[in-house]
């Protein structure tokens, strides 16, 4: 139903006076325009839905999937073993979660439990990306490691980040054996080389020398939409996004917003792939590229980053 502009403004002013949040009003206005309020569910829908779901609840529930979809075809014995172990781990996690939920009738407060939950869940989800890499030939994970949002040292000191990195290493080892591409990591650099501390450089140098991922670096100015985002894409449908600098590694680990869906993951994968075209590759298939041979020392890492920063326009990239 289309309203005249004046009438619509009147409605919206009236609703705003009731104190509804702006984003909710905007969402509702858009839904009204789409006609989403023009049809109402029938009164029997709840009961019909309950009837259909009854047999699926409780003991009829399927065992938790490790995240490897059978539609991706047969898995080799190693991956199958990983899958089985992950399934068992995930089911155990679910049982713990139910117990915790039962105990915590009170609004559990939950910075600690949320962190614990994500800490135990994310590495499992990382490991489960092996199946996706095997079946699709794409990197199991794609990461935009934004140094402006996640400090390089956090990957070494925080248990959550460390767990994800360890899982990533396991995944890379498995896919490397089969010749599939490893995880892809694009580092978004800070604007100024002086913004990096000695500890930052040490962490970056260590990572560059030990990682099995394919790694790129891109100057801040060239990072486009990723200037203010840190993104992790797991497999074909899980996306984690951080859009603001947190005060600590623990806060950052919890502040990642999680999204799920093939379309959103594909979009992110495409955007990350696109940005690698403007970035400088530092590691490729387990080896440092020629320009990054000195990255094993702090001075070498600093020189490398400094060099990448000077390429921000891309004008002399080919000759570098």
């Amino acid at each position, binding site marked *: 139903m289309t309203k005249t502009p004046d009438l619509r403004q009147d*409605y919206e002013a*009236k*609703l705003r006076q*009731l*104190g*509804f*949040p702006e*984003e*909710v*009003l905007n*969402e*509702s206005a858009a*839904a*009204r325009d*789409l*006609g*989403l*309020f023009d*049809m*109402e*569910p*029938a009164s029997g*829908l*709840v009961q*019909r*839905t*309950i009837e*259909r*779901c*009854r047999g699926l*609840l*409780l003991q009829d*529930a399927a065992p*938790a999937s490790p995240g490897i979809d059978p539609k991706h075809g047969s898995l080799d014995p190693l991956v199958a073993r990983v899958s089985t172990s992950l399934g068992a781990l995930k089911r155990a996690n*679910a049982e713990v*979660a*139910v117990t*915790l*939920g*039962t105990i*915590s*009738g009170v*609004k*559990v*407060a*939950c*910075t600690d*439990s*949320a962190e614990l*939950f*994500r800490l135990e869940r994310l590495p499992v989800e990382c490991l489960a990306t092996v199946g996706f890499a095997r079946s699709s030939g794409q990197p199991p994970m794609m990461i935009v490691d934004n140094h402006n949002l996640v400090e390089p040292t956090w990957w070494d000191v925080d248990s959550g980040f460390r767990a994800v990195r360890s899982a990533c290493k396991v995944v890379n080892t498995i896919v490397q054996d089969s010749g599939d591409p490893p995880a892809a990591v694009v580092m978004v650099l800070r604007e100024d080389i002086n913004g990096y501390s000695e500890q930052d450089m040490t962490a970056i140098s260590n990572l560059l020398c030990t990682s099995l991922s394919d790694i790129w670096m891109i100057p801040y100015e060239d990072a486009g939409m990723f200037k203010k985002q840190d993104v992790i894409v797991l497999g074909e449908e899980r996306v984690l996004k951080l*859009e603001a600098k947190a005060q600590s590694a623990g806060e950052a680990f*919890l*502040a990642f*917003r999680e*999204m*799920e*869906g093939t*379309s*959103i993951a594909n979009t992110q994968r495409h955007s990350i792939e696109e940005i690698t075209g403007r970035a400088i590759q530092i590691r490729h298939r387990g080896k440092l590229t020629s320009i990054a041979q000195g990255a094993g020392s702090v001075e070498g890492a600093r020189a490398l980053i400094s060099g990448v920063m000077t390429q921000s326009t891309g004008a002399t990239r080919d000759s570098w």
Partner: protein
Amino acid sequence: MAAFQSILGVFGWKQPLERLPFEELLGRYAGEPGPVYEEFVKRLHRIIFQAALEYLTRGNHAVSQVGVEEMTTKVFEEFAPQFASGKAAMLLVDFAAAVRRVLDHQAFEKIAYRYYYLLPIYHLKDDLEKKLLAASYQRGIRPDLVEQLAGQFNMPAGQIQRSIEKANASLKAVIADDFTPWELSVFTEGYVR
């Protein structure tokens, strides 16, 4: 009030399911699975119906009442096997994933704010405020909202209006006091801030 309810709890009194925050619903699942899932469906079916309507309309499918209801039910069917197996505080996030699997992310985005605001709404202490805001978010914020709620709750429109204003103020306090920014970020995918 909380202390009084704790004392009543010793004598076996339980809060009615419709008053419980989402995070506490799963805690009651073992004893009363059917009613708990029914309460879950009651709270969310209307809003999922709207997402299903958007999804079908956008796809140029022939949109009928029956078709939209079928799609709505499919979302709940998809989620039923995992209903009691996740972390209680992540219930809405896990269900959102099911919505995105059966419908898609675009359909979910059309309801996302109203969907996730239901989490703090069910923390409101005042039952009337909780009912009015939950109904508002479930139905959608429409121009004739006050009149509709007046009919639904058999109350004068003026009283509904004052109660909603008060409820929205209480909701702001709940969001600020009952949750940390990190909890909001994780439990509502960052939609409620």
